[in-house]
């Protein structure tokens, strides 16, 4: 099977998934007992005329499946309706916040990859030595640490005690300003720690597994230098599974950001989501849940495609 055909086939498989995600997101509002209009009007007493007007404005007068199709079509064009709380377009609200989350997420991802892969390689190559034990302990801690607690501790130490970071984000400085990037370091480390621990152990076990394979012995029996054996033969094969999981870490980082943005009062979509759940601002909640779901599906698609690209056994 050629790579193109694989991608096409895998891509087609995501369509029912995407449909399911839209159905779930749309359906969640309708799963709430009561009339959806009450969440828009916040249970205000209305005369029949205003009520009908509002129903028409939000499309609530149409049959449910029409509402669903309308919602999906609009969402596909980036129109998620208006926020109930602020009365501003949902898309605008999200677009204002999204860049911050993307900045924090990509920094977290970069931190995780840069630290996890080399340390995983070292731990695997020197397996069962002190280095490996240290990495194991670090991984155990990293996985068990609640990220919000780690965030609080980092604030306590670096912002409160050492005064190295501001306690509140310098949002007025602009997204890519130096201040903002420096401030983002703490939340990025907070999110990245879990991913680092996970990827490091995965890199280690994947590499240990490859090191034990027969082809490594073949390569050594050929008289190749140890460096070539590890770099050319072992590393490439062990990275295949790691790259896949790294792509899936996107989901991990999104869920991390939801909580960590609260810790750092960070102006991203995670905090927006939590705030609006409190206010029952369903258009915003729906839009965010949908976007996150779609992002994760695409990340998984990317992971599979990368895997196929790296592993010739799937490509051909």
């Amino acid at each position: 099977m050629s790579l193109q055909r694989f991608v096409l086939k895998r891509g087609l498989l995501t369509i029912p998934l995407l449909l399911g995600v839209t159905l779930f997101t749309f359906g969640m509002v309708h799963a709430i007992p009561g009339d959806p209009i009450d969440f828009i009007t916040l249970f205000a007493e209305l005369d029949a005329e205003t009520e009908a007007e509002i129903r028409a404005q939000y499309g609530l007068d149409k049959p449910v499946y029409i509402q669903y199709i309308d919602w999906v079509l609009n969402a596909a064009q980036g129109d998620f309706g208006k926020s109930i709380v602020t009365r501003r377009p949902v898309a605008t609200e999200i677009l204002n916040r999204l860049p911050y989350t993307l900045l924090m997420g990509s920094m977290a991802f970069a931190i995780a990859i840069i630290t996890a892969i080399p340390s995983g390689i070292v731990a695997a190559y020197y397996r069962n030595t002190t280095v490996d034990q240290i990495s194991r302990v670090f991984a155990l801690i990293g996985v068990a640490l609640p990220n919000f607690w780690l965030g609080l501790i980092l604030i306590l130490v670096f912002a409160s005690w050492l005064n190295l970071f501001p306690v509140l984000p310098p949002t007025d400085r602009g997204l890519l300003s130096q201040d903002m990037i420096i401030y983002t370091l703490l939340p990025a480390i907070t999110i990245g720690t879990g991913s680092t621990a996970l990827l490091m152990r995965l890199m280690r076990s994947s590499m240990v597994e490859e090191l034990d394979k027969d082809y490594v012995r073949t390569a050594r029996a050929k008289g190749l230098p140890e460096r070539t054996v590890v770099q050319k033969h072992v590393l490439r094969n062990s990275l295949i599974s790691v790259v896949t999981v790294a792509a899936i870490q996107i989901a991990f980082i999104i869920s991390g950001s939801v909580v960590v943005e609260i810790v750092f009062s960070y102006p991203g979509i995670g905090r927006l989501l939590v705030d609006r759940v409190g206010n029952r601002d369903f258009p915003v909640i729906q839009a965010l849940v949908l976007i996150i779901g779609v992002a994760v599906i695409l990340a998984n698609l990317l992971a599979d495609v990368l895997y196929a690209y790296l592993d010739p056994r799937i490509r051909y």
Partner: protein
Amino acid sequence: MALLEVEDLTVRFYTEDGVVKATNNLSYRIEAGEHFGVVGESGAGKSVSSLAIMRLIEDPGVIESGEIRFKGQNLLELSAEEMRTIRGNEIAMIFQDAETALNPAYTVGEQIAEAVRHHMDLDDAAARDRAIEMLDSVGIPDAAERYSDYPHQFSGGMQQRAVIAMALSCDPDLIIADEPTTALDVTIEAQILELLEEVSETFDTAIQLITHDLGVVAEFCDRVMVMYAGHPVEIAAVDDLYYNPQHPYTVGLMSSIPRIGDTRDRLQTIPGRMPDLIENPPGCNFHPRCPYAEDVCARREPPLVNVETGDPADPINSDSQSAACLEHTGDLLEGLDYQVTVRGTDESTGDAASTDGGVSDE
């Protein structure tokens, strides 16, 4: 001076469960161009001894003592760098399972060319040509096209051919073939053995063939060493071993081969199984499974001796048949009571020559 002389090789594995005595005082030699067989059940230490020659024993394994002299040079004294110039270049290895022995992420051709580039100082194009030539010489059709195929695109027999091509690529003087045909069909097995026979003749390469199959040894080898539980129990020229086995274990192995036209009710297999090499039986390791064992076998460890003279064997300098059984040091009361019957190839006459393989008191 022989091509390879292994003297008193002892390898241990320090595992969590205990010390695995993988080989004990193993000595043998291989002459240039010779086919030397190493036979035994799985777990007898066959593979370990071959990995030791390549110095590819991995943690927790340790070569405790002994010498491995290749062209007179003790391989165990070489630096890692010097050893690498020998590996793949002068001594090459063929592994049991070709499918796993090849790296799935690189093309077959590249994996051959890689060794060529490294040892023969050729540029990319020349190494490629050499690799294609090798693929061709092991009978892979359209070698130039198959060069850029990945291992999974080859059939099992083809993969084993590719692995042989890889071993041959730098024109080695010794090839260690570790059960090269075990994973293959019988018909392909015959082809591969034929191929090995052919290349060793063409290039005058010595081959150490590791197998558990006595049939393969009979066809292929000049001399044989039988191993049991990490010990050499019998070393002999192939004809001597077959027509005149001198160790009960060899006898057991041979009598458990099923044959067409066999009139026996059932096979006479060796009862029980091999010890795990961590805690070996006292005395002769084979005594719990040996029908001829006597009390003395559980107490005294039999030395490897020349079966004709009873003197300590010298497998490095002498060709005489030697075995490690107390029978040959005169310690057994009852003797080994078995018969080797040889039927003439002319079956129609039905006459059979019988020889009493063991010693009996009658």
